[in-house]
C-alpha cells in the first residue's frame, strides 16, 4: 500500500467553525513585567545575571522585535503585549474563533536551568492571568525549560489540569536533536496528558544554524530555520520517538511545509537502505510523518507559479489533514488570512480543513 493511500484519521469536515490561528505571539510589556510572576529569589538575578544564554548569534535584523511595523501599541509596550490591539488587528478583524498563544519570551535558551524553570513558570502564569482569563478565544502553549527535562515535566504537571493550555511549547534551536533520549521525559509527560508537543521557530543553542557553520546574514538565519526543522523531524523519526511514544503528536510551528514531502521520501529511501542501524524505526518514515506530525502554514511558501504548491501537496495528500493555518501575528512575516492561502490555491474542502478542522481535532477545541 502506498503511503498516500493511507490517510490518517481524517477529522470530520462537517464539524467546522470559525478560523483557528495556530501561531499568535504574546510579549511582555517590558522586560520587568515578568517580576510580578517571578519568585523574589530571582528578581535581582533577572536584572543582573539574567539567563546566561548561548550568545554570539547577532544579526542586525529587518525590524524591531521582528514585528509588523504597524503592531506597536500606542500604550508603549512591545508588539503582542496589548490584548486590545490584538483584538483589533487580528481576532476581531478576521473573526478568529480560537487563537493559540505562543509566548515570545522563552526560557529554553538559558544555561542557568533554575532560572530557566522559574521564567517558564512565570511566563505560563502570565499567559493564564493576563490573556486566557480575559478572552475566551485564546488558548495557551505551555512554555517549558526544555534543556532540563525534569523541570519541564514538573511544569507540565503543574498546569496540565488547566485545559486552556493545549500544547507543550519548545523552540527549534535545541542543544541536541529532539529525538535524543535526553528529551524523552518531556514526550512521556505530554503524551500522558494528551498534549501535543509544539516546536516553534527560533531560539539559540550556541550551535551554528547550518550544518556548515555560521552564515553571515539575517536572511540566512531566517531561511535557515527551515533546515533546523528538517533536522528535528529527521531526528524525532529516526531516533524512534514516535514508536516509543505512540500517543505523541508533534507540531512543527513556523518551520515551513513544502519541504515535508521531499524530506519524507528521502527518509523513506534512506530507511530502506540503512534501516538496520535503527531497528527501533519500524515503519516507513513517511507513514509516521503522515499520521503523527502537524505543520502550521506561516510563512507559507510562495512559489513563482502558485499551482506548484498544490502539485507538491498532491504527491503527499495526507498533508491536507495536517496543515494548520497560522498568522504569526504580530511578527513581520505575518500571513494575512485573506491573502496568504491565495498563493497556494487549495482545492475546495482543503481550505476549511487547514483553517479550522485540523487544529480543532488536534487540540480538542
Amino acid at each position, binding site marked *: 500500500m502506498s503511503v498516500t493511500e493511507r490517510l490518517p484519521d481524517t477529522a470530520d469536515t462537517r464539524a467546522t467553525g470559525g478560523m483557528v490561528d495556530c501561531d499568535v505571539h504574546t510579549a511582555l510589556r517590558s522586560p520587568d513585567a515578568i517580576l510580578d510572576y517571578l519568585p523574589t529569589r530571582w528578581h535581582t538575578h533577572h536584572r543582573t545575571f539574567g539567563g546566561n544564554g548561548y550568545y554570539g548569534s547577532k544579526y542586525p535584523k529587518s525590524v524591531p522585535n521582528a514585528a509588523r511595523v504597524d503592531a506597536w501599541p500606542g500604550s508603549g509596550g512591545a508588539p503582542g503585549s496589548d490584548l486590545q490591539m490584538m483584538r483589533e488587528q487580528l481576532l476581531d478583524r478576521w473573526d478568529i474563533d480560537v487563537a493559540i498563544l505562543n509566548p515570545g519570551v522563552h526560557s529554553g535558551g538559558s544555561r542557568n536551568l533554575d532560572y530557566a524553570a522559574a521564567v517558564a513558570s512565570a511566563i505560563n502564569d502570565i499567559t493564564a492571568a493576563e490573556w486566557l482569563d480575559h478572552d475566551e478565544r485564546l488558548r495557551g502553549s505551555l512554555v517549558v525549560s526544555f534543556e532540563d527535562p525534569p523541570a519541564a515535566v514538573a511544569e507540565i504537571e503543574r498546569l496540565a489540569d488547566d485545559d486552556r493550555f493545549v500544547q507543550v511549547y519548545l523552540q527549534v534551536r535545541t542543544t541536541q536533536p*529532539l529525538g535524543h533520549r535526553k528529551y524523552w521525559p518531556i514526550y512521556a509527560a505530554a503524551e500522558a496528558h494528551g498534549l501535543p508537543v509544539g516546536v516553534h521557530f527560533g531560539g539559540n543553542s550556541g550551535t551554528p544554524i547550518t550544518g556548515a*557553520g555560521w552564515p553571515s546574514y539575517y536572511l540566512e538565519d531566517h531561511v535557515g530555520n*527551515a533546515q533546523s526543522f528538517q533536522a528535528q523531524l529527521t531526528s524525532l523519526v529516526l531516533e524512534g520517538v514516535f514508536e516509543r511514544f505512540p500517543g505523541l503528536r508533534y507540531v512543527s510551528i513556523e518551520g515551513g511545509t513544502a519541504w515535508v514531502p521531499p524530506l519524507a521520501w528521502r527518509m523513506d529511501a534512506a530507511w*530502506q537502505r540503512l534501516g538496520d542501524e535503527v531497528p527501533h524505526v519500524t515503519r516507513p518514515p513517511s507513514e509516521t510523518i503522515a499520521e503523527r506530525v502537524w505543520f502550521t502554514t506561516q510563512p507559507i511558501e510562495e512559489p513563482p507559479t502558485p499551482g506548484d504548491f498544490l502539485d507538491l501537496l498532491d504527491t503527499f495528500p495526507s498533508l491536507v489533514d495536517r496543515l494548520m493555518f497560522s498568522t504569526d501575528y504580530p511578527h513581520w512575516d505575518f500571513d494575512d488570512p485573506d491573502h496568504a492561502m491565495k498563493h497556494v490555491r487549495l482545492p475546495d474542502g482543503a481550505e476549511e480543513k487547514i483553517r479550522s478542522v485540523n487544529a480543532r481535532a488536534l487540540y480538542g477545541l
Partner: protein
Amino acid sequence: MGEVGIGMARPAGAGIVDADVHCTVPSAAALFPYLADHWVEQIRQSGFSGASENAYPPGIPTSARPGSAPGDGRPAGSDLDVLRTQVLDVDGVEAAILNCAYAVDTIRNPDAASAIASAVNDWQLAEWLEVEPRLHGSLVVPSQIPELAVAEIERLGDDPRFVQVFLPARSAVPYGRRDFHKVLAAAVERDLVVSLQYGGFPGNPPTAVGWPSYHIEEYVGMASVMQSQLMNLIAEGVFDAFGDLRVSLVEGGFTWLPSFLWRFDKDWKGLRREVPWVRRPPSEYVHDHVRLTTAPLDLDTHRPEAFATLFAQVGGADVLMYASDHPHLHADTGDDWTSMLPEDARAPVLGDNARAFYRLNR
C-alpha cells in the same frame, strides 16, 4: 551489464556522462610515491593511517554496490578495472566525473593536510586520469585553509584533466563567506567547477541542533547541509562577484530544491536590503550557475507522479546531471528510475547537461 546497471536505451546522438563516480585511496601507503620523503617517514614512523574517516562507513549497504570491491582486501572504488566494468564500459557511457572523497579536512595539521591533498591529486592523475581518458577529475584541496586550497588549485588547476574542485559539503564556515572567495576565484580563473559533495568533518555538528545519534540521520541531513551551502553562496553574492562561477551539488539529493527556493525567494523580497549585491531572485542564480546530480534520487520508482512533479519543479531538464555515484548504491533499484525521465529530458539529463557544464568536448 550488472543488476545495477544503467538500464536504459542510449540517447540518440550523444553518450551518457556519469557525473559522479568515486575513486578510493586504498591506504596511506598508496600515497607514498607521491609524498616527500619527510612525510613518508613521518607517516610510517607515527603510524598515521591517513584521513581514515569515511563519510560512508565501509560495509554498510549504501557504500559498496555488489561487485564493486576488487576482492583483494582493497576497498570498493579503489580499482579502475572494476569502475570500467561497472560504469565506463556499459553501453552508451561516454565519460565520467571522478571524485575522490579523501577526507583531507579531517587532518588538522595544515602542512600535512596540504601535502596529503597534493599526493591524492598526483595519485589520481597517475593512476586514474592518465590511464583512463574517459575520466575527468576533481581536485582534492585542504578546504579548511583557504590559502592552501588556493595553492593546490594553482599547482594543478590548469591541467585539463581536472574539471572541478572538490569541497566537502560540511564545513566549519560556509563556502560563500568572504574569506573563501579566493578559492572560488582561483577555480573560476581556471574554468573549474566548484563541487560541493556529500561529507565533511569540520568538527561542528552536522545540524543546526547538534549531533544526531545515527549515521542515517547524517545521511538524510546532508540535504539540509546542501541547502545551507547553496543559501550562503547566493546570499554572499558569489554568482555576481564571479559571473562565470559554476557550482555542482553532488550526492546531496535534489528534491529539496523547489521548496527551498520558494522560501528563499520569498524572504529575499523583504530582506534583500541586507544583501543588496544579490540582485536577482535566488532561484535565478541556481538556474544559471548550479547543477545537481541525480544520486541519491530520494524517491523510489513507485512514485512516478511525485517524480514527475518534482522533476518539473526542479527544472530537471536544465539543472540535473545523471550520476551513478559508483561504488555507492542508494537504492536496490539502481538506475531503473531513468525510465521515468520525460522523453525530451533524457539527453540533457543523461549527458548533455554535464557535457556542457564541464565543457567536456573542448
